[in-house]
């Protein structure tokens, strides 16, 4: 299998302005030198806590946020070199599903307009066959086509997320960034949407970057999982391997922090002290060292390099160097 998407040393630094003249006083390293690739038809899970840079990273792969440095190779081409016209030609092949189905759909558009707009713009439908195409799309995501003239506020959260998924599918994309697509949904609806995403992925051979803070959800549907902490990927491995043989102390803590569903096996003593530090002023060396139970002297000073534990398990941690 070949890589559909490959990112190399991708960086995004946001400037911090202060004072009367809005001088740049600092940089927030939201994403700091991240590299990985996603194979065609693969689901790569990207997990981490709020502020770790996972959303910024996801959007940079679509060039919705312009990277500060690095490369984004989509189907072999570096899209960061593309001009606007070339970008518009490639956009239909890359799409995004947002977390919040309440704020990501235009409240003044009917479902038909929401789904039809991009198809008309990109010439994938004509005025004549638009209704037919919209109906097929709605059926595909489990919405009744008779709702096509309704507005987003007339739907429940789960149905709205189905509209968001249909919108992403409208142009037959190859690659979809799913940015916390089930986090705002109730448990029973979450299961429906996860099933739908998995079914669509298999039927259409989609490649997904699945961003979530919920390790159980990522474990359920992704082939490989990358863990981020303060702008850096700290571990990347096939999902089962990551769950069973997590190497990075942060990954182990995240796994241990999941509340267990068995009331007879109770855990106390939270696995990690403290909180994620501010990305404006991250700790030196390995960003995780102040919270790490296994921190050593040089963790404070040296940024750990990537270590391959085996052919497909990578970790950034001094324990393994």
């Amino acid at each position: 299998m070949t890589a559909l998407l490959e990112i190399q040393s991708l960086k995004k630094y946001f400037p911090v302005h202060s004072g009367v003249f809005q001088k740049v006083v600092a940089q927030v390293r939201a994403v700091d030198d991240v590299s990985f690739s996603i194979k065609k038809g693969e689901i790569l899970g990207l997990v981490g806590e709020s502020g770790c840079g996972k959303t910024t990273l996801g959007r940079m792969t679509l060039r919705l946020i312009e990277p500060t440095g690095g490369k984004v190779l989509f189907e072999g081409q570096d899209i960061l070199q593309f001009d606007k016209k070339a970008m518009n030609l490639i956009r239909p092949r890359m799409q995004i599903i947002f977390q919040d189905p309440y704020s990501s759909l235009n409240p003044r558009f009917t479902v038909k307009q929401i789904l039809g707009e991009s198809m008309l713009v990109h010439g994938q439908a004509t005025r004549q066959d638009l209704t037919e195409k919209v109906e097929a799309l709605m059926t595909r995501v489990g919405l009744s086509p008779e709702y096509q003239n309704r507005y987003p506020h007339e739907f429940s959260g789960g149905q709205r997320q189905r509209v968001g998924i249909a919108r992403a599918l409208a142009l037959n994309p190859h690659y979809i960034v799913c940015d916390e697509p089930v986090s705002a949904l109730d448990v029973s609806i979450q299961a429906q949407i996860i099933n739908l995403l998995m079914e669509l992925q298999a039927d259409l051979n989609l490649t997904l970057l699945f961003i979530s803070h919920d390790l159980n959800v990522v474990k359920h549907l992704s082939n490989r999982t990358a863990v981020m902490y303060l702008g850096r990927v700290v571990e990347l491995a096939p999902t089962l391997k990551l769950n069973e043989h997590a190497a990075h102390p942060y990954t182990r803590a995240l796994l241990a922090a999941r509340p267990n569903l068995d009331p007879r096996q109770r855990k106390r003593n939270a696995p990690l002290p403290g909180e994620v530090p501010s990305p404006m002023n991250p700790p030196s060396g390995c960003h995780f060292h102040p919270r790490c139970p296994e921190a050593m002297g040089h963790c404070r000073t040296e940024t750990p390099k990537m270590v391959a534990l085996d052919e497909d398990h990578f970790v950034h941690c001094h324990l393994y160097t």
Partner: protein
Amino acid sequence: MSHLLSIENLGTCFDTDDGVVQSVRQVSLTLDAGETLALVGESGCGKSVTALSVMRLIPMPPGRFTSGRILFSGRNLLELTEAEMQRVRGNQIGMIFQEPMTSLNPIFTVGDQIMEVVLRHENISQQQARARALEMLKRVAIPSPEARLDQYPHELSGGMKQRVMTAMAIACQPQLLIADEPTTALDVTVQAQILDLLDKLRQDTRMSILLITHNLGIVAQYADRVAVMYSGKIVEEGPVTSIFESPQHPYTQGLLNSLPKEDPRAKLETIPGMVPHPARLPRGCAFHPRCPEAHPPCRETVPGWFTPSPEDPEHRVACWLYDPSRTQPVSS
């Protein structure tokens, strides 16, 4: 033994443009000293309205109580005057809200906000109140508590704000703490810290906790008993082990089954359909349109309480499946 809190047949409704929304219907619950009761359910099921009813924080109008009593240490909270209720709120019953970001006042220091609670309810000096605020910040394990007293909420992280909220809620040593989704806005590693803290406070002071959450993992880890709500009604209640090991109501079973399991990439079980609109509840059992086991009486009559297992008398379920006289249709 009498209960610390006993909610009896509570009904809370709201008059809206869409008609009367009966958010809480015939809810009965008890909570003993030192116990944690989890109230679980999906958004809109009435769990927060139940908690706000106990605190008498329902805006009226449009809200109104339609039935029931809320007995707290033997007094019916629904009959207290507002002045009497103010002496209960923050003093005997503390509450933590979901969003620590919006529940703290941004223009007062953390110390001032905790002191305000103490000065409001106790006859003590400024110095003593400040000392108490410091003690509370220490008890919720905030790093460098002396410095925090004079900081403003925006200077604190999310987890620290939730610790400050907790410090405020327990400053007067309440007998009951209502925690409404206390960790939903927090990261998983911080979530575990806050829940461990609440559990430790409960053990140290024999405070009771009414824990409202939609996270079943949290319920399994921290609750003694569980009440499951659906469309304003409690549908199942029992000890935490009974609920997780032998859930009886089809809704509880559906919720537990829809969680991702050990077997990755398998199709998840789902509950078909969605929660009914609260102003247009179906007749009979509100869950029947989504229930795989619905049969004729479910569509007609609201189920009463049944005890499925004689060995587990505290485990009760509001579902016609467990009606011993199920062969004949039951009328209310």
